């Protein structure tokens, strides 16, 4: 399936929220879902365990209607963050047009963030895609926690953002930074299209 189909005049973007367990990926989707007007609401599919951990993945289809003559659809996915679900993560990552890496801003989660980021890169590589060409943004979630518990966006940039990606501080629970992140990744994905095929291919 192509990202922009001129024959059927469709644009379909698959965006995957990636990050360590409990960093707030599902929360991001839930907030987006809460803001979608009723007439555009699809069904958010969430396969969660009893303790609210994502077991398989979340899927939120967003039908944006017709834009410039194109039926535009966004599909937002999350991956399960826990280390042992890597097969699922790889599966969800397949065909992604863009990735949001949701980092947990808490100081004690730094190693998990780094590990997850490395895992992301390894999985992308396994799909035969150059990490540098895949549209991606970072979100530093939980910035609402007390300052002594978290790293500042600047510190997180230093620790995680070695590719100088766009990064957004966020408080996904209250919706702060959620749409900024989504807008940024959507724009990256769409702009990559206009620059041509390189990197715009699905994984």
């Amino acid at each position, binding site marked *: 399936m192509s990202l922009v189909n001129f024959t059927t005049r469709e*644009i379909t973007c698959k965006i995957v929220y990636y990050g360590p367990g409990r960093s707030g990926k599902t929360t991001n989707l839930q907030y987006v879902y809460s803001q979608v007007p009723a007439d555009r609401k699809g069904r958010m599919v969430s396969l969660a365990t009893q303790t609210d951990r994502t077991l398989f993945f979340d899927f939120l289809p967003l039908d944006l209607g017709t*834009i*410039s003559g194109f039926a535009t659809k966004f599909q937002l996915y999350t991956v399960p963050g826990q280390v042992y679900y890597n097969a699922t993560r790889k599966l969800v990552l397949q065909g992604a047009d863009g990735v949001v890496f949701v980092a947990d801003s808490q100081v004690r989660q730094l190693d998990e963030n780094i590990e997850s980021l490395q895992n992301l890169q390894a999985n992308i590589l396994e799909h035969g895609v150059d990490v540098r060409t895949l549209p991606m943004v970072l979100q530093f979630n939980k910035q609402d926690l007390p300052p002594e518990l978290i790293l500042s966006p600047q510190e997180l940039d230093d620790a995680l953002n070695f590719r100088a990606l766009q990064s957004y501080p966020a408080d996904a629970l209250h919706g702060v930074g959620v749409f900024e992140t989504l807008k940024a990744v959507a*724009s990256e994905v*769409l702009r990559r299209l*206009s*620059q041509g*095929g390189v990197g715009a291919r699905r994984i």
Partner: protein
Amino acid sequence: MDLNPRFRFEGFVIGASNRLAATAARTVGESPGSAYNPLFLYAKSGLGKTHLLQAVGFLALERQGTLRVEYLTLEEFVERYHAAVAAGQVEAFRRSALETDLLLLDDVQFLAEHREMQAELLRVTEALVAAERQIVLTCDRPPGEIADLDERLVSRLSGGLLVDIASPDFETRLAILHRKVAERGVEMPAGVLETVAEVGASNVRELIGFVNRLIAFQAVGGGSLTPEAARALLTDELPAAAPAAKPEPPPRTSRAVPAEPDEFSSFLTAVSTTVAQTVEAWRSRVGEAVLRWQGEGYRTQRLEQLLLSEEIPDIGAELARYASDVEELRRLADEAAAFDPSASGQAVFHDPDRLEEARALAERVKQGVEPPPPPSKGLTFAEFVEGPASDAAVRAARDVVAEPGKRFNPLFITGPSGTGKTHLLHAVGNELIATRPGAVVACLSAQAFTDELVQALDAGRIEWWRRRFRRADALLLDDVQLLAGREATQEELFNLFNAFSDAEKQLAFTADRAPGQLAGVAARLTTRFEGGLVVELAPPDRTMRTEMVRRLLAARHVTSDDDAIDYLASRPADSARAVQGLVNRALARMDPASETLTLQAARVAVEGRSQRPSQAQAISAIVPAGLDGVIGSREKVVWDWPGSADRLIEELR
């Protein structure tokens, strides 16, 4: 329609939501036609489209008073067009539209209702843009979302700059409120405007409505307005008339309702803008490139293919590759033209998909290896009718082919016109090529040889011309008697002769007379011609003529009885050409339905009548046979005496 003086840039409050639109509009107003053309502003109602549009007009007029600025809503535009159609003055309408320096068109979303106007607007837009005249349009949605809008118009309108104006944010709202209150000369207590700004309004008209309500409230109640009262007033939490009577502010528990803007809408707007700027802009970019290159005479097959592709290709790279190919084609064509002016007109130099061929061609032209004229393919030994008259010449020619450059160099064939000298010369050339694949044989008439030399001299590329011939493995020159008086050509031929002869490359010539009798040809050439083998081709004898007739008829798929062939061959003909003329005449008079040429038909054709076959046959059969070889020129003989038999009898009496 006149511009409203209230709508100037000075009165436009700029915030984050409209900064891009305002900047673009100002740029356009400062130098119409040179920046974003067309400029397409879109926004929901009440966000300042019309204000910006008219401000562009004012600014442009301030800068250049002589500009023709036209502000029209789409409805007015349509009305004018319809009036023009009704009055039969469509052309006048178009002319007037095209004479406008700055066309400001408001509310074009109504185009959906006027399909016939879409074509007209497309025409106007294209003409204005082409003439570097500015067009600015406003709409409540991006072009792609106007229902039923012509694709070409969508792409044309998206081709300039597409900017949207979002709902004003808090700071902008506050600034607008301050501005509006100041315009009315009213003062508001501290905090009131901030509260109003917090209450939020999706557009500026609503904000102005708020201000009006506050001013009215103040005027009626006379009391001082508190922020709380203002909020209550505007959110209808309390009856508008009551607040003055109720001193204590309403409880803060009731939350300000839509304090946060609609995040999803703003996301949608962002995506729409990006799509409009990228996806559609991509297509118009390719479309423009196609038009541009076609205009310059290049084939754009490759780019047109891009438009059909289902996925977005790497446009920048594709266009750059195309442009660089065109650049190379241009360079190649220029290079080739320096050697051969006619070469640059070749189609390969205008088709980037045939770059390789163009390179090869340019290289050939540059190296002078554009092969010299080859022998004509149809003239082969197989086609040549041999007989006693041509025996010596043909044998010499075959020897030349067997050992080119060694046996008889040069071979010089003489003979009267039409005896097959040219045919034999070309046959030698073809046979040389056939027996030595890759051999380059130059075979042309002395006239063409001279003409090419003159052209080369004229174009200052004599060296190229020399290289072109020197690379040949054999030089066969027809009708060298035509070199008479052509001194420069003789000079060149002399040099070529020596070069060929030294390199043991074959030379062959034909002329209608022996070398020694060539008047006007330098002795150093004629003596060299004589230094090889001079052979003569005599006019065809009867046997050869019979064979020629047979072959000519067979070639036309006509059967014939032997009498007819014999009759035609018996007719006097001193050359192969004359035989062909006879056969053609016979065939032309033949019954189209029949496939057989009879003696009768042949005679009618040749002699022009059908009476008295026996006598005519007798005369024709006897006389020419008897005269064959005796009378050199057939013009001197009267062949067809009208009624000669009668006359003879009469004289006998």
